[in-house]
């Protein structure tokens, strides 16, 4: 995943503006640092050595040391100029970020929960809205407007390659604009400390071609298909008669609870548990049995289901593509 979460490898205009400002700022700061360090080292090298017996030099008390004063004043003036340059650069980047286009933007609502991300793709046509979790697909080259809110405590949405971070604060709705110019998978993670599993509250932003995105979103809009064979039917029934449906939703079934991630197309996702667990049948079974072994403190309780029931459940969930 190296490079998938890197501030200095921008994949979109927001991160690119910031990276440009970064290099400008770094250049100015490095120049200042080197200048100070050189002056300091020259001072250390050229000043004669003394010891406890050396009498103090009281000449400065009688004179204002005009040459030194001039040099120090020039140095201060240069620092002020440098700071003003940095300020101008910062404000220019800020304006560029504020003026990013919003035409034809894709609207996505992201709600942070301890410790996963609820994602709703908005649409003026209510029937075209759909819900997923922990994985955000976006079309390359189209602005995305995220509206961020929190279901419990403060979280922070951060995809370093695409944009700076924005907090999700209970009682407030914040917006974040981003856009991907390069197709790819970009990793994000909660950046505001939010409790026990702050470390494993990750997500992925998958930027793909508009065609691929359209195909993906059409698939996501579909409700879950009814199971066809006896094994998955058993899993389906277990899901709807057991505790699963008390927290999770599967569109097209009576399960509609929103306490945990939407599972309508769970098998299409790469990760379980907000980036903590790879999504394959083995891990899924282990996760259902004991989420705490992967994410101690996770809100999902352990389920001591007999092996055959667990297999049926997993078989059913694997059909939710």
């Amino acid at each position: 995943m190296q490079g998938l979460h890197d501030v200095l490898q921008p994949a979109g205009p927001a991160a690119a503006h910031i990276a440009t400002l970064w290099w400008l700022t770094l250049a100015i700061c490095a120049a200042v640092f080197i200048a100070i360090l050189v002056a300091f080292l020259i001072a250390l090298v050229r000043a004669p050595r003394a010891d406890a017996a050396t009498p103090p030099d009281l000449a400065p008390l009688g004179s204002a040391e005009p040459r030194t004063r001039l040099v120090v004043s020039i140095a201060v003036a240069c620092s002020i100029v440098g700071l003003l340059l940095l300020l101008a650069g910062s404000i220019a980047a800020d304006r560029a970020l504020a003026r990013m286009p919003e035409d034809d933007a894709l609207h996505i609502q992201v709600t942070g929960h301890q410790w996963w991300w609820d994602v709703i793709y908005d649409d003026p046509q209510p029937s075209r809205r759909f819900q997923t979790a922990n994985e955000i697909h976006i079309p390359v080259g189209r602005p995305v407007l995220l509206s961020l809110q929190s279901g419990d405590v403060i979280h922070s949405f951060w995809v370093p390659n695409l944009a700076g971070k924005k907090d999700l604060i209970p009682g407030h709705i914040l917006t974040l604009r981003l856009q991907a110019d390069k197709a790819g998978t970009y990793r994000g993670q909660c950046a505001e400390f939010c409790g026990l599993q702050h470390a494993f509250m990750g997500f992925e932003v998958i930027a793909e071609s508009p065609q691929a995105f359209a195909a993906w979103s059409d698939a996501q809009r579909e409700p879950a298909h009814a199971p066809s064979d006896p094994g998955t039917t058993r899993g389906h029934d277990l899901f709807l008669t057991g505790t699963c449906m008390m927290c999770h939703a599967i569109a097209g079934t009576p399960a509609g609870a929103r306490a945990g991630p939407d599972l309508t197309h769970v098998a299409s996702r790469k990760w379980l548990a907000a980036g903590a667990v790879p999504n394959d049948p083995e891990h899924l079974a282990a996760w259902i049995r004991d989420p705490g072994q992967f994410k101690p403190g996770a809100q999902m309780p352990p389920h001591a289901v007999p092996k055959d029931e667990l297999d049926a459940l997993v078989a059913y969930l694997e059909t939710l593509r």
Partner: protein
Amino acid sequence: MTDAYVAMPEPAAAQALERTWRDPPGFLGWLAAVNHKSIGRRFIVTAFGFFVAAGLLAAVMRLQLSRPDNHIVGPDLYNRIFTLHGTAMMFLFAVPVMQAMAVYLVPLMIGTRSTAFPRMTAYAYWVYLFGGLMIFIAFLLAMGPDNGWFNYVPLSGPQYSSGKRSDFWAQLITFTEVSGLLVSVDIITTVFKLRAPGMTLARMPLFVWAMLVTAFMIIFAMPAVMLSSTMLIMDRLVGTHFFNPADGGDPLLWQHLFWFFGHPEVYFIFIPALGFMSSIIATFARRPIFGHTAMVLALIATAFFAFGLWVHHMFATNVPDLGKAFFTAMSLMIAIPSAVQIFCWIATLWKGRLYMTSALLFTLGFFFILVIGGLTGLILGSVPLDLQVHDSYFVVAHLHYVLIGGAVFPLFGAWYYWFPKITGRLMDERLGRWNFWLFFIAFNVTFYPMHHLGLEGMPRRVYTYAAATGWGPLNLLASVGAVVIALSVLLFIVNAVKSLRSGELAGPNPWRAPSLEWAADSPPAAYDFAAIPVVASREPLWDARPAPSHVTGLATDVREGVSTTVIDALPDHRYTFPSPTPWTFLAAVATTVMFISSIFTPWAVVWGSIPIIITLIAWFWPTREETAKHLALEKRP
């Protein structure tokens, strides 16, 4: 020229002074002590103890993060550890240790025999000690706070933080508030009213200026966090809704109030360190600091700007963009007064003759580390850049560069510098150099890689990370550095213990330094100065002696001092300092009982205040004997 700045007293007078000013003997006497040097020493040693404890917590964190998917500590313990590390370092070490140094040094530097309110200082120390013990005991009992030193709501509120963990945190704030505010009042009064005659504001040492400015900042900033921690406790204990959005509260209110205190707090730590720097550099460059007036103005300017930066901790929230730009400008402008000071020090070194000691080495470390920390601070102050690096390991790197480079290195320098004054013995120079170089190199090995980790997307406060993130190697490097830092601190402790037992005797002024504390004995007598000196210049021990050289006519059988005017330090009137009393200790115990009980029931505020009132009345109760003495003194010509 420096040895006997203050006239030697008659042996009989010296004995009388010693009897009057020393702390009473025995264990009870130890509890009753009010001498600023006893309190200052205790304060410094206690703060150092908390520094070591919080440092050990950091070592556990570095061990945990040394490789990916590590399970040495789980998330719950890790959260308690990083919370206590930050809380203890900020509230129990960094701020108190600076105040402790001031309690010890300021009276000596301004030529008086005590701080203005010695009993209050003693009480402040006990309250601080008990608060610190409370939070560490709570930690050991698995009741320690676990929401970070910034304790954001709603995570720390009644809904998401059950048990009493957050309440212990909020009460620790109350303890350190009381202590910090009292010491600040004490320092301001001491500096304004007890300077030796002739020590005008213009002649005051830069360290004293720094502590004066800091004390004012504490008084203006601390009420904000006092308010917010009280609101939090009320939300948790009596069901108010200050921070609950469902009932009209707002979690952002917490952030504004906390950072209105929290950002200036960085400067409570940094500004005293600037004072250490000026003292140490002047002595070891063997010339007065270049640009004394500019230095003073820079300290004051820093203090003002420091109150205009708090929103840069909140750029990722929904503060309006125009408002954020203002805070960016302020965050960059505060670099100007720091630049002025750095340039003045470089000019001083440039034109001086350098006496290379461990004390000077540690202050020189500042120029490398703090400058990097200051420049990364500019990056964090810029809104767009901050949105990327905020709450990442980049900030962890930045804050340690600022706090360790800007405060801990000068503080270690200060310890090497004033150790002979406090103990009478010099520290070992060879060990001192090892201490410095190990600390300096290991510090950079530990914290420099964190800049890169932040840019590679590693968020703060994670108890572990997956191997696939690629953060493993740099974390391992940082952990190796942390071990060496621990070794260098151990070396410092070894050096201090060894020097305390068998160090070279220092004499009053081993460094031939210019300020008044070096005119006192090492360690100073209970009464500091046999006679209150009179001052005629900024560098009294270097410069021409005034005539008269000292104040005469003060009582030796009563704790008497001279009070002077605020600006010109003209003798104003005689002032009698209070005597030792165990009631300060008992009042602190009563306060502690009230604070801790109120974690469990709000009624403790009612019944818990009764013992406090009783102990305070006893503390202030005048005795006939003392009143008679004062009356007699008043009638004396």
